[in-house]
């Protein structure tokens, strides 16, 4: 039984890729303006940012966790960084502060999940809103913070290599690093073992808890990078994004891509195909000028269906046990 599903799973990547291609072609034919260079650049930019966020989330989810604080960390860390630029301290000092804060949030998330045994979903939900509330009320004085002119973030946003925006290369680089990490390093393999069965992993001598902390730190760092890239393309960071549906888009990318929420399976390839499909879909909906509330309805319906299918294909332990016993 399980085998039939795993054949399907291997194919899920291909199915998603085909759907993305079909959607792209259909939009290219029927949507005026879709193939405009400016629009294509907007698409790959949004795919890149979404993909980077999803790469961090994927590492956490493969290890049977979830990080709901990703968007808050992304927006608030960059907002604080930009705020510091305007007030005091040299650039490198501000960057250092921001990175230290990001690491601290990842560390606290990881510590609470790993050592205090609080479920990840609650820890990160709470820490996300804490970060948002604290930074917004104490450290910055307006919703949106602009990037100062001629700052390196702005130059990064303008940087084109062979006409391709720099985000794409950064996204590519991050997925490559994540791919190598997951596949060819000891710590990366530990992610899969801990995701499949944390008790067995612990008993085998795998350092389960330190690795958990590491994953939340990685997730926070990738969120920070995604925030810098967002700021570089929009020339400002708007903290209201924390209350948008971006978080669900990230989870949608991960689940649609084929990474099971029950942990232990999936790779960076899944993240790339998921980001392609969702990035194109979001752009198409924007060009079609579908009102936001309907966009949300469509996205949440797709997420719901994806989660249901995921639940059927990756049943939790008891059911797999029954199926496997021939």
């Amino acid at each position, binding site marked *: 039984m399980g085998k039939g599903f795993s054949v399907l799973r291997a194919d899920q990547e291909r199915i998603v890729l085909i759907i993305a291609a079909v959607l792209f072609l259909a939009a290219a034919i029927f949507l005026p303006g879709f193939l405009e260079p400016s629009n294509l650049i907007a698409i790959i930019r949004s795919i890149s940012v979404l993909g980077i966020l999803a790469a961090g989330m994927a590492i956490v989810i493969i290890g049977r966790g979830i990080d709901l604080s990703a968007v808050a960390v992304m927006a608030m860390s960059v907002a604080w960084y930009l705020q510091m630029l305007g007030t005091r301290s040299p650039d490198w000092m501000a960057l250092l502060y921001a990175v230290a804060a990001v690491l601290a949030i990842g560390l606290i998330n990881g510590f609470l999940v790993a050592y205090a045994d609080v479920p990840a979903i609650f820890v990160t939900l709470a820490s996300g809103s804490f970060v948002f509330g604290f930074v917004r009320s104490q450290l910055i004085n307006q919703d949106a913070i602009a990037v100062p002119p001629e700052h390196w973030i702005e130059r990064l946003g303008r940087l084109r290599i062979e006409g391709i925006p720099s985000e794409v290369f950064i996204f590519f680089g991050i997925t490559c690093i994540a791919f190598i990490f997951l596949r060819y390093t000891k710590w990366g*393999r530990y992610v899969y*073992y801990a995701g499949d*069965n944390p*008790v067995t992993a612990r008993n085998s001598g795998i350092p389960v808890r330190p690795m958990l902390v590491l994953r939340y730190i990685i997730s926070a760092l990738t969120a920070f990078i995604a925030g810098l890239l967002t700021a570089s393309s929009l020339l400002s960071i708007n903290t209201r994004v924390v209350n948008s549906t971006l978080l669900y888009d990230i989870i949608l990318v991960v689940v649609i891509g084929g990474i099971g929420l029950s942990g*232990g*399976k999936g790779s960076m390839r899944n993240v790339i195909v998921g980001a392609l499909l969702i990035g194109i879909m979001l752009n198409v909906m924007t060009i079609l000028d579908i009102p936001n509330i309907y966009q949300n309805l469509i996205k949440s319906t797709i997420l719901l269906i994806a989660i249901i299918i995921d639940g059927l294909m990756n049943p939790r332990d008891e059911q797999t046990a029954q199926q496997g016993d021939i």
Partner: protein
Amino acid sequence: MEPIIRMQKVTKTYRGVAAIRDIDFDLQPGEIHALLGENGAGKSTLTKIMAGAVEATSGAMTYLGRKVSFTSPNEALLAGIAMVFQETSLIPSMTVAQNIYLGEEKFLNRLRGIYISAQQFLQSLNFSVEPTALVETLGAAKRQMVEIARAVHHDAKVIIFDEPTATLTPEEKRHFFALLARLKKRGVSIVFISHALEEALTHADRITIMRDGAHVLTAPAGELNRDLVIRSMVGRTLSDTIYNRNRVAADLRKPGEKILSVEDISMGSMVRNNSFSIFTGQITGVFGLIGSGRTETFKIVSGIYKRNFLRGGEIRLGERQIRYYVPREAVQDGIVYVTEDRKSEGFFETMSIAENLMSGLLAADRSGKIGINMRDMRKLAAGWTSRLNIRAINENARVVELSGGNQQKVVIGKGLIQQPRIVIFDEPTRGVDVGAIAEIHQLMTELADQGLAVVMISSYLPEIMSLSDRILVCRQGRIVEEFSPVDATEEKIMYAAVH
């Protein structure tokens, strides 16, 4: 007499591989019928088809003279066929009475009412279980009683048991079979799957033996004997049974270095002032009934549990005092624990054999290198797969799809690949087929001959008697007595374990 269940030419295939083929089987009213066979012989599949948990690919089933084909366990239960699984399906946080009446609560539910009727019902069955007790507080035997009570309550005419005695103590087993006899008197037909041949020979009316998905023979228990049964099960003659009970002093391995000494360790109420030593180059058998603290003691040694911080006693590895906080420290010191509960803490179920074996390598790796060499690891994993003779349909098969014996070998291999000095086997042959039992025993012997300290926890006396070089008996959280297998008898060991 017209049989209550008759199955004709039943076949079940999983992805083209036949789990059972063309099985004919019949169950008479009011008989106790034992199903024997190695793991993977198809016993579970056959009984699951009867109980509606699995649908047959082809073939016919007649029940009470009518053709039936159940599509769900619930349908079979309503028709009067109940199955009691090895892992019980009771709800631990509810009371006995609530579990018995599960699924038929009235909308307005008064607990007092169901306690009274459950009390009467349990008494009519002669079961000594308190209806208000929470299931999680009950032992394995009582849980089984509750399952049986639930089946009888549903007016089951057929009750199927999957390895009912695997987790019971000898005393509980006696009760269990007395209970089967009472059920039989009420006219209930019983099928039970077993690995213990003696049980089947003594308590069953008829025995059916299966091998590799095919029916081998069905005969009244009186016409069979142990040798004949084993021969039919494995399809080969075992010149001697695996369990050689006559040990002489010359055969025993001499103790090597004293590698582990445990003094006065305690953990809560499970382990109390426990002291003993383990030596290299021999097999130390640890016998104890369930709940005697034997598993907990060795989980402390291997870092899975933590002993009391105050007055927890001391453990020395060689000369060095140790107190582990995580199993990783024990693994790095060369102590490996092979669990009795492979599914929940032994293997990674959705991963392949190679990936499982590699987990052991990666976990024990102390080189400090972060990168890994996949090719070397695959080669090592393949080496262990063939050394332990682990068989699967194909190399990408998930561990959960293997037979019990092969799963156990994966768990053992995952530990041995870490090159331990002390290996603790907890019930190494539970739920393992006869062929694999012999291989695992052979392996433990080889490890001891190579100079490792081997600890074998078992509740199966013949296993303890025939393999151990020393026997420790555990009772109420501590080792109470030590025997040499030369002068130990099953009676002496059991006496020490119980009194």
